[in-house]
Structure formats: structure tokens, C-alpha cells
């Protein structure tokens, strides 16, 4: 595993990518990313949703052409193959036909196709299921088919896009172990694996090298070599320390200066807000206020205990930070005084407190409220705000942001909302 040859398999240089038609109005998902993949290594791209790691993987797979930069394969005859998060199996083909599909596209003769497919099915532990249809298989089995299909074409590089994130915890772990065994025994024809993940422990468990991405725009903020010997043990102190270290890096503020605006892309009223329910926010504050945390929690530990993926926990923590209910620092989430008052309070006081924080720290909520106050009718169509947002963000983000603001504001009774009419109002249904 340590024998790294000089000649890289993939060289990615200065890749940038925009989504959308024109460069000005749209989202920069990848900014100036470099990546070199060598022979005989597993490299993980770790980051949160929106960090462009999947985009990078697809650029290497040739599924999309990045707006700028280059993707090169210096070694001759380098081929890639891909495993998908959703398995991407053809439901109308049997396991064997699914595995053969790539060979068929390459016009491999039927007899050889069959032989190779059966060998791959055997390798991946699916014998006996050749004639089954995907809908008859469990999630883990389906992903095995996806793996066999990717391996049967003899790729030099195996690309994996969050291959285990659609599986339950136990199945995912079995599949990871099986894959690592095949890899370390050299039974797969591949030279390297490049995988995308948002699961920090998974990255530390599997990879020789981890590239940590920041989001909005996606940049490589850290490159971490993992020298722990395989098989790795999640409970080992060195393993835990590494996970902790990556948590810290991922929660670090993007740049000094931008203290809170930097949490979410965009500034002021056109900040892209994640959809986090007020119930979840309340729940997290209550959990941290109680024992054993008493106001301050270590994120990796919190994630494990609350059964959250890091990727799910981050937005909740960040909304708390935006509302000044908590402070994120060095992989810890520390509650601030308003949060303690909130946890102690009754329903109505809670709402008042939440409303106060919203109006003070979420510019869009304050803006909506101001518009409603100014108008004689005390009504304003949501369309108006959505249009305003769309000047600075994609339609999808604008919609998401409006929905968040609607939910938060309704809970705090800052305003009311009529879904049918798509209208913000000040009347409270009594």
C-alpha cells in the first residue's frame, strides 16, 4: 500500500466549475482544485453537500466537462469505471445482464461476456443471484451488483460516489470490509480507488489519503495522509484522534473576518439557508444543555450518540450558530446564554425568544417582517422575495431558503403564511 509509483494515474489541474448558464449569476461549485491520483492508493474526497466533490468525480469520469482547468490521464490506456450512490441498476435487467451491460457496450462477444460477468459475480459474492432482478435484492446486494458491473470492464481506476451512504449501518460496514479485503488481497484488477464521501469515519477507515473540501465554493482545504495500518480499528485512540482532527478542520471558519456570514453562501438577505426544522433545533439545544454535555458537546461524539451523519449535523449546528444560540469552535458546539434561557422556557416564551433571535440575526426574516409592517394591507406575495433571492442564487436555493424562512417565522409567529395563495401576512389565525 505504501509503494507509490512516480507516474500518476490522474492529474487534475486548476479545475473550476460553474452551474448555470452564464458565469456571473451562478454558483461556483469547484474553485481551482488540484488532485493527483497515484497507483495503488485509495483516495477519499471528503466534504459536505455542495462542496463539489461529486462534480470533481464526474469530471474525472468524463460525465461532465468542467468550465475550466484540465483532467489528464498521463499513463497510457487508463480507463475508469464508476459505482453510484443509488446503485443505478437497470431494474428490467437481471443481475447478470446488469453486470454484462458495460461489456456489451464495448462489443465483447457473448461467450466471453458471460465468462467475465460470472467471474465478477463470483468475486463479489453474488453467485446464485445471476438470474435475480434488482428489485428482488436487498440494498447491500444491489450495491454488490453495482460493484461487479464496475469491475468487470477492468478499469484502472474505480470511482465511487458515496457508495455506502444509501445503505444501513451494518450492511455498509460489511460491504466496506469486503471491499477492503479484496483490495488488500489484490483480487480486483484495479490500480486505484477514488471515492467521494461525507462520512468522516468511513474516509478514515478506508483511505490512504483524504482530501477535505470546503463548501461554497468547493476547494481543497486540507490533504491528510492516513498511515494507520489496515485493518483499522474505529476504537483505537489514533483513529479517534484523526476523526476529531478532521471535524475540527471541517468546522473551521472559512476566513477570519467573515465571522458569521461565512457560514452559508451569500450575504445579508440573500444568504442561502438550509432547511432545518425548529423541532430539530430545539431538540439539539435540549440535548446539549442536558447531561452529559452540560452546554458543550464534541461534534463527533454528538453525531455518534444522536445517530447523525456529520453531514446532517453540521447544518443544524450552523443554524444554531447563525441564531446566536450556539458557537462552533474547534469541533465543539457550545451553547450561548439565549439557548439556556430557551431550554428553560415555556412554549410561548420560547417562541418570543426565537422570534427575537430570528429578527436580529436572520436578515431575510427581518426584511420580510419590515415589508409586511410597511404595507397597509400587511400582505406580501412570497414570489416577491423569491424573485429578489433569485438575483443572487439559483431557483432551487431560493425556494429552499424561502421554505426555511417560512417555517421558522411561522413557528416564532413573526408572520403567517398562506400556502395556497403563496402569501406572507401578519394576521394570526386564532
Amino acid at each position, binding site marked *: 500500500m505504501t509503494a507509490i509509483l512516480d507516474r500518476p494515474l490522474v492529474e487534475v489541474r486548476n479545475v473550476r466549475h460553474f452551474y448555470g448558464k452564464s458565469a456571473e449569476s451562478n454558483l461556483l461549485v469547484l474553485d481551482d482544485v488540484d488532485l493527483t491520483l497515484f497507483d495503488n492508493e485509495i483516495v477519499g474526497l471528503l466534504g459536505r453537500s455542495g462542496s463539489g466533490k461529486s462534480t470533481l468525480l464526474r469530471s474525472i469520469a468524463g460525465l461532465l466537462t468542467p468550465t475550466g482547468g484540465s483532467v489528464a490521464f498521463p499513463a497510457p490506456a487508463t480507463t475508469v469505471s464508476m459505482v453510484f450512490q*443509488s446503485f443505478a441498476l437497470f431494474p428490467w435487467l437481471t443481475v447478470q445482464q446488469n453486470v454484462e451491460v458495460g461489456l456489451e457496450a*464495448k*462489443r465483447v462477444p457473448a461467450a466471453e461476456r458471460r465468462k467475465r460477468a460470472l467471474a465478477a459475480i463470483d468475486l463479489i459474492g453474488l453467485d446464485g443471484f445471476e438470474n435475480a432482478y434488482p428489485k428482488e435484492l436487498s440494498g447491500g446486494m444491489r450495491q454488490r451488483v453495482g460493484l461487479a458491473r464496475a469491475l468487470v470492464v477492468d478499469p484502472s481506476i474505480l470511482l465511487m460516489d458515496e457508495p455506502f451512504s444509501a445503505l444501513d449501518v451494518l450492511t455498509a460496514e460489511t460491504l466496506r470490509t469486503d471491499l477492503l479485503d479484496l483490495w488488500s488481497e489484490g483480487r480486483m484488477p484495479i490500480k486505484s480507488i477514488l471515492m467521494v464521501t461525507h462520512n468522516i469515519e468511513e474516509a478514515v477507515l478506508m483511505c490512504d489519503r483524504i482530501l477535505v473540501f470546503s463548501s461554497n465554493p468547493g476547494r481543497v482545504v486540507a490533504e491528510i495522509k492516513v498511515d494507520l495500518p489496515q485493518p483499522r480499528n474505529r476504537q483505537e485512540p489514533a483513529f479517534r484522534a484523526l476523526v476529531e482532527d478532521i471535524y475540527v478542520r471541517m468546522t473551521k471558519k472559512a476566513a477570519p473576518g467573515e465571522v458569521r456570514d461565512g457560514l452559508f453562501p451569500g450575504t445579508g438577505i440573500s444568504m442561502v439557508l438550509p432547511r432545518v426544522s425548529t423541532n430539530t433545533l430545539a431538540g439539539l439545544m435540549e440535548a446539549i444543555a442536558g447531561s452529559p454535555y452540560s452546554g458543550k458537546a464534541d461534534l463527533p461524539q454528538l453525531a455518534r450518540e444522536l445517530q447523525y451523519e456529520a453531514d446532517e449535523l453540521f447544518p443544524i449546528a450552523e443554524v444554531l450558530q447563525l441564531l446566536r444560540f450556539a458557537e462552533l469552535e474547534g469541533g465543539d458546539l457550545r451553547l450561548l446564554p439565549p439557548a439556556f434561557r430557551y431550554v428553560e422556557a415555556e412554549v410561548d416564551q420560547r417562541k418570543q425568544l426565537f422570534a427575537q433571535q430570528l429578527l436580529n440575526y436572520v436578515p431575510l426574516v427581518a426584511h420580510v417582517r419590515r415589508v409586511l409592517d410597511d404595507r397597509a394591507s400587511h400582505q406580501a406575495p412570497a414570489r416577491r422575495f423569491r424573485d429578489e433571492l433569485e438575483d443572487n442564487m439559483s431557483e432551487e436555493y431560493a425556494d429552499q431558503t424561502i421554505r426555511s424562512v417560512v417555517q421558522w417565522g411561522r413557528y416564532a409567529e413573526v408572520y403567517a403564511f398562506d400556502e395556497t395563495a403563496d402569501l406572507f401576512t401578519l394576521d394570526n389565525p386564532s
Partner: protein
Amino acid sequence: MAQRDATTERGWPIARFLRMRSAPSWADLISFLLLAAAAVLIVRGAGEASQPLAALRATPVTLDVARLPEYALRTTLRMFAALGASLVFTFVFATLAAKSRKAEMIIVPALDILQSVPVLGFLTFTVTFFMGLFPGRQLGVELAAIFAIFTSQAWNMTFSFYQSLRTVPNDLDEVSRQFGFSAWRRFIRLDLPFATPGLVWNIMMSMSGGWFFVVASEAITVGNTTVTLPGIGAWLALSIERQDLHAVAIGVGAMAVVILLYDQLVFRPVVAWADKFRFEQTKSQEAPRSWVYAMVRQTRWLRVGFAALAWPMRQIGRIDWSVPRPPALRLGGETSRILDIVWLVIIGGFAVWAVAVLAGFVSHTLNWSDVWTVTGLAFATLVRVLVLIVVASLIWVPIGVWIGLRPVWAERLQPIAQFLAAFPANVLFPFAVVLILRFKLDPNIWLSPLIILGTQWYILFNVIAGASAISTDIKEAARIFDIRGWQWWRQVALPGIFPYYVTGALTASGGSWNASIVAEAVSWGHEHIEAVGLGSYIASATAAGRSAQVALGVAVMSVFVTALNRAVWRPLYRYSERRLRLD
């Protein structure tokens, strides 16, 4: 015909059609103009080629029961020929629309309008047109009949296929691209299988509608010549002319047998087979069943026989048309914008030409008073359609809910409702005429129910499906809180069935407009009764061969149907989607 889950959203492309925008746009107007101009050209061509009508030497249809099986077979073959044509049309135009944005701009609105055109009104002209192509031969009339059925089948199939192509799952698209599938392989492996379930349901709906047209198109009177094609429709026409009630009854019975056989031997097996292409990766609760399909799969020699039938298909699938894929042309934003403009200019040119053609045609033969008359008549028919939809709803919604809530009954009655929807109601019209004449009833009122005779069943079977889809949780909650009477209807039953009801009512309303052309003017031998309305206007203009008036009538009807869809059904559907679904 449909199993229960036909009406769930997935298998029901009408649902997707309904979700489309409802505001009229320039594309609609231009499509309408182009289609109207094309129709006018056909009508003109037909007028010029009308002389060989008399020269036709067709085998006369006789009321001989021994020949009825042959007639039935020929009617069925016409249906399948039209289906084949519709499939070819679907594959070509849907693929074009899905792959090319420029083609899409024209094809999609055109399909939307074509779905609303009452093709029955054009029957006469298509007959004369096709006979002009094959003077003195029966082939022309055959083709005209097939064309009439085609026009009733093709549009929704194309629409469904296009929608499927547009919604091919992203990950499967990526797999195909990553493995470098050729265009043909992608079609065989991905596009076609993915679109199959939706397409099969639409073929089913199309076939149900098609029986109506095949009956109407086998005996056509233009001026004083009647052209007949051997078939059940011609048999019925002849029995009506001779006022032979017994023969009518035999014809109706034959029709029923044909539809039953077709349903059991062809349709159910195909639906059961198509289930394997459903995209959900979980096993469906209730897979469609067919005894024929099960038998074919379990009986060895049948399986071998079918494998032999499927062999050519497999070979076609296996061929790898190694068309080198053209290198993806990367056009800059500027260039593609210029190309768009060029394309729009071309379409604009055609639109201007269409206006010229229409203006020339209309100013020749029509004046404004015609337009006002026809619009007035259209309102008469509109009132008839709306009142009947309301009446049918008041009758069938409670019955459908009652049935739908009792799974045992629903399972037994649902296929019957679907059978009735496929049954061509026009074969029953003579009975109504006999009654009206005997009791000296007012045709303006008593002919009206005929409009909805064949289409009311769409309301019934959709309501049954909706009521059986109300979740057990909701039903139990209603029981526990003792929700009964009007409150139960208002808060449980009606919201539960509403999206299904809208789908059914839309189909019924569209079909009723079409039916008005044959239902507002009905004959029984020499007796002829008529109701005032756009349908009878088109029918009498057709009989007299006044092509301009037919064209006007058909155009006005298309506008009314399209407007009704946009103004009533789609907003209702969107409302139900937004408010009455919890997901």
C-alpha cells in the same frame, strides 16, 4: 384494461399532462395555426379527388351471422394496424421532441392541441383523401379508417413516451454515458424499457377510445354515396338502415365478445409483462395478473412458441448499429442563440403562411355570421357536456366510493367498469332513438345523455381506484373519531378521491365532445333526430359535404376543448396535487 394501480400517478401520464401549465402561450397559437392550415390543405386535396367515390367496388356487407366472425376479425385488425402506425409515430416524434429542443418547441404544444381535436369531424375528408390516393380500390377506404383510428390513438401515446424520455433517471443516464452506449443501445436498454409501463397504459387507453372510432369509420356517408368496409361497424350501420333491432343486438354482442377476448388475450398479458419494467426497485404490492401470461410462462410448449415469436425482436435488440456518435458539438452561447433565432424565424414564416392559407380558405366560403352561429352552438354543446358531467358525477361518485371502500366488490367491479369504458357506446344509440321516437321525447334533452353514455365509466373507475387508495390509517382515524355523514364526505372521501376524480372527469369531458358529433344527430332507418349543438352542426355539414363549415366547426370545438382543459381541469388537478397529497 387497467388494473387498479393504473390510476395511481405513475402509470397515468394524463396526470403528468395535467400538471402542465395552463396559461395559453404563443407556442399554442402557432401550433394551432399550423395544424389548421395543414388540415385545410388536406380538405382541399380531398375535395379535388372526390370523384372516384362512385367507382368503388366494395364487397357489400350483408347481415349474415356466419360472416360476423370475419367482420369482427377485420375490425380488430384495423385497430392493430392503427396501433402499429401510432407506435411508429410515437417513437419518431417523441424521440425527436425529447432530444431536440427546437423540435420540442413545436411538437409538444401541437400534441396538446391534437389531443383536443374531434377527429370524427374529419372522417369524410380523410376518406375522400385516401381514396384519391388509391382510386377505385378499397385500400383507400381501409387506410382512411385506419387513419381515423390512428388520430384517436397516437397523441397521448406520443406524449407519454416523450414524458418518459424526459424523466429517465439521472443515474441510469450517467451509467449509459459512462459505459459509452451507442444511441441504439441506449434506446433498447434504457429509453424504451423505462418508457414501457407508461406507454402500455396509454396504448390501453388509446385502444379503448379506438373502438369508438373504428365503429364510426366503417360506414361513411358523403353526399349520397355510402362507403362501407366489412366490419362490425358496417354491420351495425346496415342494421340501423334496415331498422333491424335483432341484428343490432347481435352486432352489440359481437362487439362485447371481441373486446373481452382482446382484453383477456392481449391486453392483460401485456400489462402483466410490462410490470417488470416498472422503475420502482421495490417489489410492488400487487403485481398485475393475467392467466394467459401465467399460462405462457408455465407451459413449456407455449413458452417455446412465444420465444420463437420474440426471437426477431431479440435479434433487432442485439444488432449494434455502430453509428459513430457525432462528436458533441460544443456551441458557444452566442452561436446557439443565433441558431434559436433562425429557427424561430423559420417557424414564424410558416405561421404567416398558415394564416394566409386559412384566411384564403375562410374568406372564400365563410363569413362572420357563421363564426357567431358556430360559437353559439358550441355553447349549447358545452352546457350539455358540463351538465352531464355533473349529473354523471352525482350518480357515480357515491357509487364508486361505496365500491372502492369494499375491496371485494372493487376487485370484481373494477374490470367491468373498465370494460364498459372501452365499449363503443355509439353501437347502442339506435336503442335510444327507438325509445325517443316511441315516447315522442324532446331530442334536445333526451339525446344529450348519449354524449356521456360511453365516457361516464371513466369517472366511475377512477373514483373506485381513488376510494380504494384511501389509506387504512385515515379510514380507521375516521372511525375512531366517529366522523360520519356530510363531514365524512367533506373531510375523508372527497379529498381522497379528488385527484382521481379530476383525471376521470377530464377524460370523460374530452370524450364527450368527440361523441357529440355522433350523438347529437342519430338515425334509425329513415327516421332522423337531431339536437341543437356543435356536434349536429358538424355532422350535418359533413353529410352535405360542406367542407369549410366542417373545418370551422372542428376548429371551434378544438378551441373549446383546449380552453376547458386549461381553465377547469388543469387548475383543479394542480389544486388537488398541492393541497390533497401528504408527501
